């Protein structure tokens, strides 16, 4: 299961498993965001390389428009994935407490 929605104060909340089957839905939602956006990943259990592609595409677009995507509440599995893929150099990442 995967869900993505707008939360309070402009935060975007992602929950569940962002895998290849869900990447089109995630991309469609993130294509609508503008400016500096915090993506709350505290409920995001899993991300596949298709999900990484969604985040990268969104970050490239937002940076080009003067905005950016920040990733918050990032769990250990996601930290590993972001570290090994070099995404920790492309995004501001706030680990889960």
């Amino acid at each position, binding site marked *: 299961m995967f869900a993505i929605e707008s939360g309070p104060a402009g935060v975007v909340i992602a929950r569940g498993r962002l895998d290849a089957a869900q990447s089109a839905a995630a991309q469609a939602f993130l294509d609508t965001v503008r400016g500096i956006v915090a993506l709350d990943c505290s409920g995001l259990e899993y991300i596949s390389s298709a999900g990484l592609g969604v985040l990268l595409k969104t970050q490239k677009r937002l940076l080009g428009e003067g905005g950016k995507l920040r990733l918050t509440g990032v769990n250990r599995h996601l930290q590993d994935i972001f570290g090994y893929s070099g995404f920790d*150099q*492309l995004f501001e990442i706030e680990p889960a407490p």
Partner: protein
Amino acid sequence: MTVARAFARRFDELPALVAFTSEAFARESVDPALRPDVDFALEELFTNMVKYSPTGDAEVMIEVTGIAGGVEVRMTDFGVEPFDVTQAPDADVTLPIEARRPGGLGLHLIRRLLDSIDYEYRQDIRQSRITFRKTKGGVRPPERAADTGRR
């Protein structure tokens, strides 16, 4: 003991794959903390099999076996050309964002998340077999960005 199931060569089998690993981990008493890395490897390898041999009729056989401290997974693909996933080049993850393109990270990441991954091909029956292992105390590669102060 081993838990095994065959999956049709279709992308929409992914939810069934996830349900299968959940069930197999429970039956083999494998630490659920290992599931995200195992699911990541299974999804990437399975989608590769579908993407690069989309016309094959044969199902992909997946076997999950509990081992000391973790799990061994075997994926067997029948009637296909060889593709050694252990030899695919790494992605350049040091490129600036302007030069980064979506894709190409799957095998790069798998080799870092797993303890081991092996590939065998039998020409006589055109069979590819990938075997990988993940354990709780598995070796982590030294180049992980988060551990090297690059952040």
